[in-house]
Each structure stands twice: as structure tokens, then as C-alpha cells.
């Protein structure tokens, strides 16, 4: 689908993968490198024509390793850069993401999750939560992680991811799943005011200044610890400022469901049905997975029961337990490997808990 010079109020029908790609374009992404993998192929195909027609750079890399390291180079040279993949491919990228974090470079990484472990399958899944929110590669670092639950939100969060990656000099991840990547919804393609961030650290040639070096290697005594402390300060600031979440009917809720991404759509539908049956259910939907939105849970003090629903066997569950810190019951409903907890299953579980 071609989107050209659309007025900002006009709705267009796009798949999640295409919307993320178009958002990257609108955010000023100058460089993209990727390697084909299902279910994110529409994204790489879209940018293969979208970027070059505007004089920007698209490279189909020889591997996921090459792609993420190309992003390292492009970002070091000052360009807004992105790569995308799905679970097994993102595992391969972890080395490069760690280097990007250590070198304090901005980058956007899209993971349209599929089933694992191993080659798994191509069904939607949320089982890369640990990998995404805990750093994923070696060393003490984090990616900023946003989990859109719809196509418009995927578009909007992708633009935010580029801005925030530049501001904080961190890798930012869009964590979706195969369902989000494939499903089509009408969206508004907004052309954002591009937030320009000065990049005095970029490699541009040393004319008129002392040479710059982009690196994550700090051999001298104390030098690595110093760099790591800079990262930790950045992460503290992100934890304070960038927690994002949606709450739905939580004020009087006896039970609060917790779900993110496409899973939250099922959970929200279940909450609506439960309310019709006079069951006081609500929903907290984390939008930022790292930083995890603890603030949403400290505000929801009345509920004595939380039900975490995931397309995994309980990964975000651990963050919810940390946020609740023992003051309420935390229950879990999850499936993975192609299975998705249905609205009916969620309702049944809630009724059993109330």
C-alpha cells in the first residue's frame, strides 16, 4: 500500500507491520536494515521502496547479525536507524543491541513476536517479554520497550520510540506479536513535528573538532563502571518519566486484569462482558513494558485480586508481583505456542476467582 501526502485527518487501512514501517518513515528514519522472517515480512518489504524513493537507505542484510550491526554503524554516524525481526531473529540481534546500549547509541528495534523456544512456530506469542525487558544480551542494560495493542498505537509508539531513543541515547523496542503485525485497522497517518536532537557524538569526520569514537569498550580501571553508572542514571530518569499505561474501570474493581499488547484487547472485551454481568472487573494495560508501569499499580490499591493474562507461561507476571509486592493476590492465566487465552476462558477464570 502506498501512502503519499495524505492529509493528517484521512484514515487509511494498514496492517500493523506496514503502520510501523510508515511511522518509521514519518519519524525520519534514514536507515533500515533487516532480514526476512515471518510474521514481520510486510515491514521490511514496505521500507524497501519507501525509504529509497525519499533518498534514504534500505539494506536487506545477509543476516540478523549484520542488520543490527549496520544499525550500530548508521546510528553512530548520526542517522535515525531501525531494524525489525521476529523472535528467533531478535535473539540473533542481542549481541548488537548490547553493543548499541553500551556505546550509548539510539536505535529502534521492532520485534513482532512468534512462538518459541527454538524455531517455534509463526503464531502470535508474548514469550519474549523476559528477553525484551531484562536487556536480552550481555551486560547491565535496558531497552525502552513499548507494546502497542492496535495498529494506530503501533504507529504512534514507533514515532515516540525514535524520539526517546535519541533523547536518552538508548535502544528502543517496539514489542508486538504476529497478530498485531498482520491485522489491518484504519489509522491516521500523522506527520509528526520531528524532534531534532543534537548529536555532537556522531561520527561525521573530525573537521573543526576533536575526533569522536563510538564504542562500548572501556578497558582502563574504573572506566567501564563509570560508563555503566551513566547508563544507570539514564535508566532511573526513564523509570521516572516514561511509564505508560492505560487503566479501564479500575476505580471500583474487585478484580483487575493485567494484560498488554493484543492480549489486552481480549482482556478488555472480557471486562466489558463481566461488567454486563455486574462483576466488578477492571483492566491495567501496561504500554511501556520497560520501564514497567509500577505507578498504575500503586494507584490501584482497592482491588484485592489481580489476574495477569499473557500469551506466555507467566513472564510479565513477575513484574506485576513485584509491583504488587504482596499486598494483593496475583493470579495467572496464560497459554503459549500458538494458544491464545480466549475471552471465554478469561471470563471463566475471573468468575472462579470472585
Amino acid at each position: 500500500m502506498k501512502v503519499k501526502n495524505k492529509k493528517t485527518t484521512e484514515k487509511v487501512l494498514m496492517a500493523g507491520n506496514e503502520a510501523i514501517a510508515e511511522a518509521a518513515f514519518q519519524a525520519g528514519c534514514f536507515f533500515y536494515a533487516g532480514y526476512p522472517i515471518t510474521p514481520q515480512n510486510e515491514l521490511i518489504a514496505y521500507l524497501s521502496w519507501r525509504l529509497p524513493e525519499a533518498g534514504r537507505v534500505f539494506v536487506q542484510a545477509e543476516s540478523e547479525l549484520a542488520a543490527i550491526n549496520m544499525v550500530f554503524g548508521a546510528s553512530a554516524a548520526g542517522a535515525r536507524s531501525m531494524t525489525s525481526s521476529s523472535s528467533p531473529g531478535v535473539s540473533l540481534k542481542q549481541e548488537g543491541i548490547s553493543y548499541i546500549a553500551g556505546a550509548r547509541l539510539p536505535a529502534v528495534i521492532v520485534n513482532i513476536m512468534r512462538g518459541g523456544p527454538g524455531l517455534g512456530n509463526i503464531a502470535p506469542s508474548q514469550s519474549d517479554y523476559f528477553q525484551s525487558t531484562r536487556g536480552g544480551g550481555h551486560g547491565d542494560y535496558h531497552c525502552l520497550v513499548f507494546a502497542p495493542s492496535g495498529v494506530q498505537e503501533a504507529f504512534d509508539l514507533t514515532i515516540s520510540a525514535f524520539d526517546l531513543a535519541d533523547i536518552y541515547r538508548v535502544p528502543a523496542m517496539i514489542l508486538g506479536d504476529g497478530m498485531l503485525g498482520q491485522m489491518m485497522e484504519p489509522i491516521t497517518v500523522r506527520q509528526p513535528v520531528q524532534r531534532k536532537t543534537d548529536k555532537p557524538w556522531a561520527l561525521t569526520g573530525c573537521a573543526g573538532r576533536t575526533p569522536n569514537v563510538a564504542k562500548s569498550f572501556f578497558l582502563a580501571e574504573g572506566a567501564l563502571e563509570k560508563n555503566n553508572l551513566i547508563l544507570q542514571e539514564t535508566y532511573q530518569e526513564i523509570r521516572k518519566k516514561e511509564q505508560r499505561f492505560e487503566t479501564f474501570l479500575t476505580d471500583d474493581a474487585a478484580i483487575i486484569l493485567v494484560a498488554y499488547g493484543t492480549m489486552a484487547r481480549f482482556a478488555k472485551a472480557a471486562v466489558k462482558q463481566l461488567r454486563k454481568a455486574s462483576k466488578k472487573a477492571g483492566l491495567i494495560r501496561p504500554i511501556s513494558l520497560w520501564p514497567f508501569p509500577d505507578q498504575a499499580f500503586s494507584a490501584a490499591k482497592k482491588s484485592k485480586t489481580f489476574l495477569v493474562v499473557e500469551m506466555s507461561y507467566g513472564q510479565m507476571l513477575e513484574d506485576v508481583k513485584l509491583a504488587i509486592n504482596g499486598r494483593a493476590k496475583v493470579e495467572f492465566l496464560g497459554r503459549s505456542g500458538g494458544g491464545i487465552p480466549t475471552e471465554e476462558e478469561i471470563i471463566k477464570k475471573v468468575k472462579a476467582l470472585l
Partner: protein
Amino acid sequence: MEKIFSHPESLRDVSTHYCPGCGHGISHRLVAEIVDELGIREKVIGIAPVGCAVIAYDYWDFDCCEAAHGRACAVATAIKRVRPQNIVFTYQGDGDLAAIGTNETIHAANRGENFTVVFINNAIYGMTGGQLAPTTLVGQKASTALKGRTVKEHGHPLKISEILASLPAVKYVERVSLHSPSEVLKAKKALKQAFTNQIQGAGFSLVEILSPCATYWGMPPKDALDWIRDVMAKEFPLGRIK
């Protein structure tokens, strides 16, 4: 009086961490001299490897980028595509370029990426302690091949330059050596050609430099130079490959 020789502007006036008899210092200096002579110091972006030359950016006085082990050609691809007005080169050892990074190297070359590769072949892993390299000679001992390389177990030394020369998009491949002053001058000439090719937009150029590692070859520095001449250059013939 005309000044005919001085310390290169592109090389910092600092001591290196390299072992006595190592070839990296010479190669660093050659690159720096060429950058000065071509007047590109303010445009050049070097990609440092993982290996003994990992902190090459502490010696060169121009913009540099780190690359994960083996990924220098991927990093260089992106930098050159994003900033074609800059002069981009990678500096990589044999393990980096021809073992863990073979894929990135071959594909960047096959795409005809317009950057320059300085490939240091010393037939051994230096930084990690003398392990078998893809270019280790048959019979040459390594800390992971105590009885020496055998064809049966390890295969033949990998001639990556000859492989790359077979690719249509590759512009220039030459193998040079550091074993004598006259060979060093030839090496400089080849490197200058490889950088000039890039300035002219000609495409992928690579210079393989046979370089001594006296420490892990277990011989005095002068013997290491002679070993390049008498043994290594027999396996890896010098001269223009493409």
C-alpha cells in the same frame, strides 16, 4: 628548508600496547600516513576490530567506530551508505575478518560497497593467546592445536582474498607483507591505491597485509620477519590478486 618527513598528523604521539616485533604499529602508521597524504583526515571514519587492534582509535587521530567481533564490514556498509561523502575503512585481523566475520566480509564485498578494508593476516589469534586462526599454516602450532594445524582436522588455511577476488563487484585485492622495508613501501602503495579507489567511487578494495606476531609464533622479531618471507609468503603469495 623543505620538510620531507615528520610524524603523521593522523597518528597520536603515544606509545602503543603492542608486543615487541608486532606488525600493527607499522600498519597503523601506514594508514595514518596515507590519510595525511590524501588530505582526508577530517573526512575519514575508521572501523576498529575486536582483537589486538581493538583500541586502534587510541592511536589514530580521526573519527573511529567500534565493531563487534567480525561485524566491521556491516558497520562500514551502514556508515558509508549514510555518509557517502566520508572515507570509510575497516581494519581487521584474520579471526575477525575470515572466521567470525566471513559472512559480513563476503556480502559487503559482493555488494561492491565502496569502502576500504585493511586486512591484517598474522596467521594466529593474538589478543586471546595464540589460538588457531583460519589462516594458520599447516603444521603451525597454536594454543588450540598443540601439534600444529593438520589438513585432516582443520582444513587448509583460508585464502579469503582469493575468494573475494572472484566476486564481480570487488574492485581491488592485493596481498602485501611487512617483512622488509621495501615490502613495507609496497604495502603503503597498495593501501594508497585502496583508499584512492574509494575516493574515486570505484568500489570494494582490500589489502591483505602479512604481519608478524613474534609473540605467538614463538620466535624473535627478526626471525618472525624471515618466517613471513620464507614460509608464510609461500602459502599466501604476494602481489596483486585483482
